[in-house]
């Protein structure tokens, strides 16, 4: 059976098992009424969990979902679980925006072939951050293509590893075949301010899209 016992966390994710409940400092106020989400995507080892952890007010947690290759999941007649099921884990963090609004950041697993099977992950998401490593640009092509197909707005954040070759932004745009409007920012996924600026770049981009939509 492909279903993974919890003792064997041999799948690809970068986080650690979390505590059994939120600590005192992790509690949301009772006034919290609504939440929004942003999805952080990118190849394995590009720094998604580091990015999420740097801006999150809680230690990143891991959630998981079981899914079948056919995408039928638990909706199979009678809930019968088949051999094609896979468990996909995602690390996520949280930022309280104000007393009422909470932003959640989900780092999707490296196996891009799985993450669009997770129905609902991108539904209702504000947008996505595509984290890229200039040493391995090719792993981003598939992700970018799928986001474009789905119409998910995204910004590209180049995680500046010390040993990464630095590219001119316009060269990167050409290499990644990105439309001129899509923002490309460089970041240090370890730094809170840097991660915040990436999220702000996404929000400003969304504002510009909203404005453009209102003008049409």
């Amino acid at each position, binding site marked *: 059976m492909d279903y993974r016992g919890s003792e064997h966390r041999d799948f690809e994710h970068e986080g650690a098992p979390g505590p*059994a409940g939120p600590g005192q400092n992790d509690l949301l106020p009772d006034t919290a009424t609504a939440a929004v989400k942003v999805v952080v995507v990118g190849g394995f080892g590009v720094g998604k969990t580091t990015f999420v952890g740097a801006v999150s007010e809680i230690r990143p947690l891991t959630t998981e979902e079981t899914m079948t290759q056919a995408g039928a999941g638990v909706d199979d007649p009678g809930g019968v679980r088949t051999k094609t099921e896979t468990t996909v884990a995602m690390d996520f963090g949280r930022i309280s925006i104000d007393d009422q609004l909470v932003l959640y950041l989900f780092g999707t697993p490296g196996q891009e072939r799985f993450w669009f099977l997770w129905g609902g992950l991108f539904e209702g998401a504000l947008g996505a951050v595509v984290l890229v490593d200039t040493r391995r640009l090719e792993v981003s092509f598939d992700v970018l293509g799928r986001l474009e197909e789905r119409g998910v707005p995204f910004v590209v954040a180049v995680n500046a590893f010390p040993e990464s070759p630095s590219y001119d932004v316009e060269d990167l745009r050409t290499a990644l075949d990105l439309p001129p409007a899509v923002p490309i920012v460089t970041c240090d996924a370890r730094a809170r301010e840097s991660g915040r600026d990436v999220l702000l770049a996404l929000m400003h981009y969304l504002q510009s899209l909203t404005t453009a939509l209102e003008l049409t």
Partner: protein
Amino acid sequence: MSDQHGGPAGPDPWGEETPERLYVITGGRPASTKRSAIDLVSLVVAQVGPDPMTPPEQAAILRLCRSPLSVAEVSAYLRLPVSVVNVLLADLLDRGSVQVRGPVPIAVLPDRELLEAVINGLQRL
């Protein structure tokens, strides 16, 4: 990694999270249609405490959600797949034991007011 078990809110006193076990705690039911109203970032707030008849997983949810907590966080703390949490939540919702808030509906693009709120919040980070 057996140290993952044994927490007070742990869903798995028998040390095995086999599909059969997940099947049992959801009563073998597929997620109900209410699932569509429950998102990963819906905030769950308990309206009542667990009573002695509350099944252990539902009781754990009620204890966790004394303060608002997202479905993703509930799934992470209980170490249960999101789809299983959704089935349990649909039951709790039916009984009025929890309130589910949000998420903010996003049609094509988020509205201006929401984006401004997020930008202001991020700038305070």
